[in-house]
C-alpha cells in the first residue's frame, strides 16, 4: 500500500511519499523516510521491497557522491536518472531490484525536472507521476487539477487533494506522508501530513 508521487512546478519539484513500513499485517513504523536526499539538489522517492529500497538508494547516493569528488562537479538530474536506470537494467536479468523511483532535481541550466523509473528499468521524463495503489487516485487528481508553472502553494494544495483522496478511498491507506521539495536553494524536507504520532 506504499505510495510515492511527484510534480514539477515553477522553479521547483515536489515529491510526496507515504511513511509506513509494513510487514504483512503489522505496521513497523509510520515515520519511515522514503525520500532520500541524493545530493544538494536532488530528491529520490523510492517505494518497493524494503531491503532493495535501502540498498539501491544508498548505493546510488554513494556513487553520485563519488562522481562529484572525481570530476569536481555534480551530476545533472538527467545523468543521475540514466545512471539509476542503467543499474536497474543490468541487475534485471540476474537479481532484480524491486524498487520504483521518482527522481526530482534542480539544475542551474535546465531548471526543475522529474523522472519516473520503475523496477524493470523504464525511464520517463515527466511533469507529474505516481507509484503504488495510491497512484490510481493521485494520477486522476493530478490529471484534473495539474497545470504547468504552478506556485509552491498551488502544488501543495494539489498534493493535499491527492493525499485526501488516498486516505478516503484506499482500503488500507497509509497513515502519514512526508513532502520534500527541491528548488534553486536545494533539496529539503518541507512538511509532514500526519494522522498518527509515532
Amino acid at each position: 500500500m506504499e505510495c510515492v508521487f511527484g510534480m514539477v512546478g515553477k522553479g521547483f519539484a515536489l515529491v510526496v511519499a507515504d511513511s509506513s513500513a509494513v510487514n504483512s499485517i503489522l505496521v513497523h513504523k509510520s515515520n519511515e523516510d522514503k525520500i532520500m536526499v541524493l545530493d544538494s539538489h536532488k530528491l529520490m522517492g523510492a517505494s518497493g521491497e524494503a531491503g532493495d529500497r535501502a540498498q539501491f538508494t544508498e548505493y546510488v547516493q554513494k556513487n553520485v557522491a563519488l562522481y562529484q569528488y572525481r570530476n569536481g562537479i555534480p551530476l545533472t538530474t538527467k545523468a543521475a536518472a540514466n545512471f539509476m536506470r542503467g543499474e536497474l537494467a543490468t541487475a534485471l536479468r540476474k537479481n532484480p531490484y524491486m524498487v520504483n523511483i521518482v527522481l526530482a532535481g534542480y539544475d542551474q541550466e535546465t531548471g526543475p525536472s522529474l523522472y519516473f523509473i520503475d523496477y524493470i528499468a523504464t525511464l520517463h521524463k515527466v511533469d507529474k507521476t505516481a507509484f503504488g495503489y495510491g497512484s490510481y487516485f493521485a494520477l486522476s487528481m493530478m490529471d484534473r487539477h495539474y497545470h504547468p508553472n504552478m506556485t509552491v502553494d498551488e502544488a501543495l494544495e494539489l498534493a493535499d487533494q491527492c493525499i485526501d483522496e488516498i486516505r478516503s478511498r484506499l482500503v488500507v491507506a497509509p497513515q502519514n506522508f512526508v513532502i520534500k521539495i527541491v528548488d534553486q536553494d536545494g533539496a529539503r524536507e518541507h512538511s509532514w501530513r500526519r494522522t498518527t504520532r509515532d
Partner: protein
Amino acid sequence: MARYDRAITVFSPDGHLFQVEYALEAVRKGNAAVGVRGTDTIVLGVEKKSTVKLQDSRSVRKIVSLDDHIALACAGLKADARVLINRARIECQSHRLTVEDPVTVEYITRYIAGLQQKYTQSGGVRPFGLSTLIVGFDPYTGVPSLYQTDPSGTFSAWKANATGRNSNSMREFLEKNYKETSGQETIKLAIRALLEVVESGGKNIEVAVMTKEGLRQLDEAEIDAIVAEIEAEKAAAEAAKKAPAKET
C-alpha cells in the same frame, strides 16, 4: 647489487628493497609539499612550477579532496597519484555505504599505505612513486590530524611535515619554528616553510586550508597578501636586528 633491483619482490643481500628506494628517489625529485597541523586548522601547501604559460592551471589541482572532511597532497609521480586518489575516493564512499559512517583520517591513511605496501610485495608491478600528506578532522571527535605515507607503505602522524624537493630544509625550518597555532597563524607557518625552498609569490604556491567546515583552496590574491605579510615581518625582524648593532 645491480642484480637485485629487477623484480621488487627480491631482497638484496644487505636487506634492501631497491625498487622501493628508487621510488623514494622519485619522490625526492617531485615538487615540494608541506603540511602543518593547528588546533582548529590544518594547512597543505604545494609548490607550483610556473614555467608553463599555455597550460590551463585550473586543470592541475595538486591538493585534492577525498571526502568532505579529508584532503590529500602528494609529491612524486602524478600519474600514480591519480590512481591512488581514485582508489581512496572509492574507499571513502564504500566505507560510508557499508558502515553508514564517514572514514576517519587514520583509516583512509592506513588504506592508502596498505595499497602502497601491496605493490612492494607483488610480482611484475612497481611501487607507487609518491608520498602523500593526508589531512582531515575526525568526524566524531573533531580532532585534526596530519598523516604521511611513503612508497614503502609506512605511515605515521605528524604535527608538521614536508615531502618532495628540499623536504629536509623545510622540515628543519618546521622543527625550529613549530608551535601550536590556530587559524591564520597556521596558514602563515605553512607558507613560511614553503617559501624556504620555493620562489616567492602567489603563482608559485598552491595552498588549501582544512577546517571543520571543509576544504578551502586559497586563491592567488589571498596567497600574495599573506606572502607580503610574511616578507614585511621578515624585513621588520631584520631591521630590528640591525638597529641595536648600529647604536653600539
